[in-house]
């Protein structure tokens, strides 16, 4: 009876059983069946399956789940059997179409590969573990790289958004002054649009205790610029750019949920920020992210008259969008023209100032880029080592299967067919390793992000996605091919006779094979050395970084930021008095050794001023970090006094103006010495009084642990208009953490409505500034360790193999009077020759690739001889250990035994 004629119309057949997850999965599983079968039974079988699941689900979900899994497995297995039957029918009967045949062979290969691999867990398990670790490490790091560096920012036309910065006369990047921003926005033709923002700390009152929160002041049109208008309410209006408009605020989605329970009636209500009551006019979309720290509130710019008139006051971050078709270079050229125009027009404020711009993504990612790429490279090296190891294991396995291969080809198996079979096995290994690796990476990514402790930009964007899956898939296939090549070449050129002979001992041949495997070992050792060398260099830098003389004693210091609301602290005297009173009160506590306040804490930022010295040429000027401090600052930080004196308590407003400079500035101004007693003058400030230098103190790192100490000038905070925000530093006699309550209490005693922001010990601040270095070190250390272990396993494997292949030879040598000791030496020499070749190759590789590390290193040359020596010694030692065991076995060969096996 011909069944083919009964093919029925399947149109509409898929109605009636829906498209739930299990049904879809089942239909996929049924794809294992041959086409013919599917044409006839696919819908019926799916219906039966769906019915089976539904009947069981009414009893219990678990029963249904068990059934579904069983049925899926049954579908795949039955499909494969069905195909094999179809294949057999086809081989005996009609011819088959090429593609069809290819797929069927592939299926048979896959089935066979699985069976082979399952039957050989001694090979499969170590290989899968190695590959899973290698691919997992790469996938995890790539996931982070993808989220941070590769993915476009989540803004409208993000690839055309650039960050514009001014360049200070000393050459470093700087924020933009509002008048310069307006000139840019009005004049630049190559820019479609521009907008500005500035991050700010705010005090939220109205709750039980005053609270410190992050906010951003933005220009009107900022959210539209980024393509993220408020989800609720409105954006800021152009008139809100100027001070005097009714005070408004827009909430982040998070703040709206946390503080207002996500109620729509929030719009129109008010919050008090820095003592100003503001009407809530909008709520941002849930997914909107901008700037670090996830700011809670967004305020309009509210520029004062002074803000928009003083070109010398730089405090804006500027974003611009390139016109379509314009590139960054053209835009930069135009901007430079605009800036030289400004320089001519406003020489007083703009002389020497330039402009620069770069893609926003680059600005956001910043310094995270290099460490991440270094880690990705290191993970790649680990994977290569893993591949070499697997290839070696696989070579040994192919040789064990030599007879099988020989029989297959003797029975007419073509060479291509054998190659296909072997390659399929490796692809199965690669992909299985990839799937396992993906699982590991999935688990590892969160832990990886935790390591960064919030110091990784765009951490929110990191996650396993399509790009990551594709990456893992590609490297899995790559690994399969890479590890399969050598065994394929080796396994399929076996000559029949040699393989079919029952004795294993083939002296010359063993050497030939040994050469291929030796090459793998050399490569492994070389790669391991490169990796460990990188780890060593980074470790070396890290140690140096932790030992950097910061210029002050970081131990036992507690720091916190205090922001005085302008509404309540309007005059300079009030602000100066607050910080002086607080410092004095704190010093009265028993556990407080000293306390002071400073405008900008060391390591955390920059605040610079341009000045000149009396008698210098008209256009001569200098720039220095300007630090406003209370008199006790140097004592509290333990910054050494080198010449002259520090400030006295009496040197407040009204007293003669005094300044203290650091060594770097003193040297810059007066290389021959004698800075004390000279004077400096500040340009552009309302009063052009001169300040007498009364002392010289030691250098302190201002921008971070890595950056050299800049020229710095200190002035008493009470002699000028002190900023409304200063950092308090408290030196404790014991653990600074014990002083947290004391500090809070002291602040509350002076002003109960003030919160303390960013409370932290100085040591934690220093440690946090080294976070990315620490993460790189931890991961490189981990990778380096894995590399050494894999390298050692590689050497051990090859030497064991060589010894086992040459048992007879060893036996003969010993029988002929060779001392076991000589045999031992011989084996060790052979192993160490491989290691030595690897070391040389690795050294060359390190020298070639070392410069890629320059950006992450500190105080160490990429070719640092000490590190290279230590790493070489370590690798040599591990290699030696890996040779000893097989060598001892060789030396212990019983000549009689080894010859009898002949």
């Amino acid at each position, binding site marked *: *009876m011909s*069944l083919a004629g*009964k093919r*029925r*119309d*399947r149109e509409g*057949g*898929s*109605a*009636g*059983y829906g498209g739930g997850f299990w049904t879809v999965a089942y239909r996929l*599983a*049924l794809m294992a*069946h041959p086409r013919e*079968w599917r044409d*006839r*039974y696919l*819908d*019926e*079988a*799916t*219906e*039966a*399956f769906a*019915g*089976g699941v539904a*009947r069981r689900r009414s009893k219990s979900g678990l029963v249904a789940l068990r*059934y579904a899994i*069983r*049925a*899926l497995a*049954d*579908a*795949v*297995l*039955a*499909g494969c*059997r*069905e195909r094999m039957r179809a294949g057999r029918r086809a081989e005996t009967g009609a011819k088959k179409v090429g593609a069809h045949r290819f797929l069927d062979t592939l299926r048979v290969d896959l089935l066979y590969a699985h069976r082979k691999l399952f039957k050989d867990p001694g090979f499969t398990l170590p290989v899968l573990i190695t590959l899973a670790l290698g691919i997992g490490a790469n996938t995890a790091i790539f996931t982070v790289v993808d989220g941070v560096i590769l993915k476009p920012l989540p803004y409208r036309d993000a690839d055309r958004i650039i960050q514009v910065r001014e360049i200070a006369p000393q050459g470093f990047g700087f924020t933009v002054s509002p008048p310069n921003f307006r000139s840019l926005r009005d004049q630049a033709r190559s820019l479609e649009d521009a907008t500005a923002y500035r991050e700010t700390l705010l005090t939220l009152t109205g709750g039980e205790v005053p609270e410190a929160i992050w906010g951003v002041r933005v220009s009107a049109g900022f959210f539209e610029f980024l393509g993220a208008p408020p989800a609720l309410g409105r954006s800021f209006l152009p008139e809100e750019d100027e001070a005097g408009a009714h005070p408004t605020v827009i909430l982040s989605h998070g703040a709206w949920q946390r503080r207002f329970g996500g109620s729509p009636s929030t719009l129109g209500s008010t919050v008090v920020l820095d003592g100003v009551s503001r009407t809530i006019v909008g709520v941002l979309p849930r997914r909107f992210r901008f700037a670090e720290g996830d700011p809670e509130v967004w305020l309009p710019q509210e520029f004062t008259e002074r803000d928009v008139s003083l070109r010398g006051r730089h405090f804006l971050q500027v974003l611009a969008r390139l016109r379509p078709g314009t590139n960054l270079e053209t835009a930069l050229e135009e901007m430079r023209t605009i800036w030289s125009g400004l320089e001519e027009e406003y020489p007083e404020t703009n002389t020497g100032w330039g402009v620069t711009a770069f893609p926003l993504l680059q600005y956001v990612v910043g310094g995270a880029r290099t460490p991440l790429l270094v880690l990705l490279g290191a993970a790649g090296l680990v994977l290569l080592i893993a591949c070499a190891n697997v290839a070696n294991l696989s070579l040994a396995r192919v040789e064990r299967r030599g007879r099988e291969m020989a029989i297959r080809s003797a029975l007419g198996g073509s060479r291509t067919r054998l190659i296909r079979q072997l390659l399929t096995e490796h692809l199965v290994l690669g992909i299985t390793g990839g799937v396992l690796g993906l699982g590991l990476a999935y688990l590892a990514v969160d832990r990886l992000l935790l390591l960064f402790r919030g110091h990784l930009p765009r951490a929110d964007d990191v996650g396993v996605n399509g790009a990551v899956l594709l990456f893992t898939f590609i490297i899995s296939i790559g690994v399969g091919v890479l590890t399969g090549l050598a065994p394929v070449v080796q396994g399929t050129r076996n000559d029949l006779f040699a393989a079919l002979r029952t004795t294993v001992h083939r002296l010359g041949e063993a050497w030939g094979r040994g050469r291929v495997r030796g090459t793998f070992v050399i490569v492994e050792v070389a790669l391991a050395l490169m990796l460990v060398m990188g780890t060593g260099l980074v470790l070396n830098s890290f140690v140096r970084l932790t030992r950097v003389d910061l210029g002050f004693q970081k131990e036992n210091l507690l720091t916190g930021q205090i922001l005085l609301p302008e509404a309540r602290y309007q005059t300079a005297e009030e602000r100066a008095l607050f910080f002086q009173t607080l410092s004095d009160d704190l010093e009265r506590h028993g556990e407080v050794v000293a306390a002071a306040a400073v405008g900008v804490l060391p390591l955390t930022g920059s605040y610079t001023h341009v000045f000149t010295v009396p008698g210098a040429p008209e256009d001569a000027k200098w720039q220095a970090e300007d630090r406003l401090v209370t008199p006790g600052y140097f004592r509290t930080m333990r910054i050494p006094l080198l010449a002259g004196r520090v400030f006295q308590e009496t040197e407040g407003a009204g007293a003669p103006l005094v300044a203290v400079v650091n060594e770097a500035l003193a040297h810059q101004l007066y290389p021959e010495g004698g800075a004390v007693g000279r004077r400096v003058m500040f340009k552009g400030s309302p009063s052009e009084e001169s300040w007498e230098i009364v002392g010289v103190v030691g250098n302190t790192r201002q921008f971070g642990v890595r950056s050299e100490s800049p020229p710095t000038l200190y002035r008493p905070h009470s002699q000028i208009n002190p900023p409304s925000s200063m950092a308090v530093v408290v030196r404790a006699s014991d653990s600074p953490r014990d002083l947290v309550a004391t500090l809070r209490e002291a602040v509350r005693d002076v002003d109960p409505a003030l919160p303390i922001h960013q409370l932290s010990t100085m040591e934690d601040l220093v440690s946090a500034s080294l976070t990315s270095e620490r993460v790189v070190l931890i991961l490189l250390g981990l990778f380096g360790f894995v590399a050494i272990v894999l390298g050692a396993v590689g050497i051990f494997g090859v030497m064991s193999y060589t010894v086992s292949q040459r048992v007879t030879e060893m036996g003969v040598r010993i029988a002929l009077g060779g001392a076991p000791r000589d045999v031992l030496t011989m084996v060790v020499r052979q192993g160490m020759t491989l290691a030595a070749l690897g070391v040389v190759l690795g050294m060359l590789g390190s020298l070639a690739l070392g410069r890629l590390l320059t950006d992450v290193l500190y105080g160490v040359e990429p070719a640092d001889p000490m590190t290279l020596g230590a790493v070489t010694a370590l690798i040599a030692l591990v290699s030696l250990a890996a040779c000893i065991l097989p060598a001892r076995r060789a030396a212990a060969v019983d000549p009689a035994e080894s010859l009898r096996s002949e």
Partner: protein
Amino acid sequence: MRKKLPRPEGHLPLHPQVFHVLLALGDGTCHGYGIIQAFEALTQGRETLLPGSLYGTLSRMVNAGLIEEVDSPPVQTSGGPPRRYYRATAYGREAARAESERMERLLAVARARKLAPKGVR
């Protein structure tokens, strides 16, 4: 075009799935999904037939002459996909009977060895 069939005993022992299908069909007419439901009902849900392998088995049973496809289904009741209906042939029922006898003989042996469950007659 039906080829000459071997004696029903030639199929013994029957593959369990084949035997189960014959049991489920009895002397009725049924489609694949119905066979699964009937079999589960007959065994109080203790045994099941999985669809992935069932249809291939049905196709081979038709080829072996154990069952036959009924050309036009009596009445299409529910709104599922179009279904094929099957009926056991006399030859198939003969094979099932032979398989039962074989099992009975085995059960007798088991009983003699005290390997049969208690309470069986």
